[in-house]
């Protein structure tokens, strides 16, 4: 019997194609990209060796510093916002709406599946000031406030981006965390209630610790996603005004394809990879103890 399930030819037929495509499209290019970071040039003009020049440039390039700072700042704020909004929604589903939550869950989940480019263009117009004040500025006007040109400065554009990302994704985290909350045994909640815990105290002392593992996986998932933010920025601000909302992903793209600097682009991609791995590792280490407990 062992021979049948260990049939080498069958394993090769089943696994071979996937492994081949995966290696050609992902594994080989990863290593290849590493090689590019020691060169300059591009696929049209050809490549020449460049030693460590790209890495030296990476360390001193103010645009990289700005992009890295933006990426980290954005990732931090959005991660907190996404997971917090998602958790509050999940609590709302479980403890307030209860059985009636299916409709609300569906509605709040809507934006998750929408094309980011479409959402980006939509938000551009929701927050616009000219030629027509968009709904947001109309609302400000109705409240007696001055309309704001949201995309004129990096500071306000950043917040529109944040609002859009949270709007887009909170339904996803809500459902994810909802799944975790539903798993809390009823007896535990009930006995806590009998002991007089209710409302916030119930959440703080019973629900929060018990949903900690799923909260942590949401956090890691969110950080990973937000560090790689691309579509949303391109569609909403395209990195502007100036380069004030340019994350590493977009800077890498511009360097490579707008300026044709493949070597330096690869070096930026490598930096992005290292940052993603480091952040995941830190979060993972911080939470490992609790994850194994749950």
């Amino acid at each position, binding site marked *: *019997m062992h021979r*049948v*399930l260990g049939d080498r030819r*069958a*394993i090769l037929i089943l*696994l071979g*194609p*996937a492994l081949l*495509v*995966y290696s050609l*499209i*992902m*594994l080989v*290019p*990863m290593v290849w990209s590493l090689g*590019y970071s020691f060169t300059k040039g591009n696929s049209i003009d050809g490549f020449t060796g460049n030693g460590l020049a790209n890495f030296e440039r990476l360390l001193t390039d103010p645009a990289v510093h700005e992009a890295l700072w933006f990426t980290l700042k954005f990732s931090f704020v959005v991660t907190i916002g996404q997971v917090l909004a998602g958790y509050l929604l999940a609590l709302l589903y479980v403890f*307030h*709406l*209860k*059985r009636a*939550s299916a409709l*609300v869950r569906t*509605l*709040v989940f*809507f934006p*998750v*599946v*929408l*094309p*980011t*480019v*479409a959402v980006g263009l*939509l938000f551009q117009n*929701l927050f616009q000031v000219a030629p*027509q*004040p*968009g*709904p947001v500025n*109309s609302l400000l006007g109705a409240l007696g406030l001055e309309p704001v040109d949201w995309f004129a400065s990096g500071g306000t554009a950043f917040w529109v981006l944040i609002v859009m990302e949270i*709007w887009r994704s909170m339904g*996803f985290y809500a459902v994810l965390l909802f799944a975790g*909350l*539903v798993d809390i045994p009823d007896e535990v*909640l009930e006995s806590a209630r009998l002991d007089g815990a*209710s*409302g916030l105290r119930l959440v703080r002392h019973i629900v929060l610790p018990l949903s900690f593992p799923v909260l942590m*996986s949401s956090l890691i*998932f969110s950080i*990973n996603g937000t560090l790689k933010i*691309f*579509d949303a920025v391109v*569609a909403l601000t395209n990195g502007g005004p100036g380069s004030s909302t340019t994350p590493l*992903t977009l800077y890498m*793209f511009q360097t*490579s394809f707008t300026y044709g600097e493949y070597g330096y682009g*690869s070096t930026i*991609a490598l930096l*992005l*990879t290292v940052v993603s*791995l480091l952040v995941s590792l830190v979060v993972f280490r911080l939470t490992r103890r609790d994850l194994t407990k749950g």
Partner: protein
Amino acid sequence: MAVDTPLKSTPRGHRRGLPAAGRPPRRRGRARPWVMRVVVALLLVVETYPLVWMFLTSVKSNADYLNNPSWSLPTTWEWGNYTEAWTTGNIGLYVQNSVMAVVPSLALILLLGTAAGFALQIMVWKGRSLTLVVFLVGMMVPPQMILLPLFTLYFQTGLSGTLWPLILTYTGTGLPLTVFMMATYYKTVPRELFEAATIDGAGILRAFWTISLPVVRNAVLTVALVQFFFIWNDLLIALTFTNSQDLRTVQVGLLNFTADFGATQYGPLFAAICINVFGTLAIYLFLNQKVMKGLTGGAVKG
């Protein structure tokens, strides 16, 4: 859902005996539903108003859009905006390109991923957990890392200028999650099922095809939905590998819509956005529960 059962199962007399332990029930019983109702109402407005507003704007004429407040209803309903977006704005062509890139990618991802998941979980051989880890690496590395080598590769093999770069890249990048999810699903299928099948004379390949596939049919559907939304909504890969206007997918086309069509044509622009959004929404509503489960299932495991 499961959470509210204990409340119901609690005998009434028992609950009435409670106040000694908690606060008087009346206070929160009156004040809170009001607040919560407002919260829920606000939430629904925040979720749906942008979409409603977008739809209303898509049927406004340009003069109507420019002269009247943004929240007002359309004075005349200009359905022609949709025709214009579809034909002059090329959305029809972009949708066609997207379909032609997404369908083959999806078919390849599912076929290769399911087979690999089977080989990695059901079959017994040395080094299969290592192979699984190798696939997992693909989920951690940002796609930017593979863009430039692939661009060179497609350029040198003459594949640029076709939809093949998209199909190949989507297949490659979609495999890690698919293989991982399928391997996880196969864990729930007892190996004895396949042993029994082979005792009855079926080869292991036949057992994979005729026995395992029907068993994991739901899982395949879930993975298909998750991957569909990933690929359909992708911008990065499509933007990198579609250098000519004729190859643009919906996302790239939409991004360039304002540039190509003139920023002044607001009606058709919003109609184009609407076609995208409501097209996706229709698919989502049709498959609602599966999508949610699939996306979150993939998330927890990924």
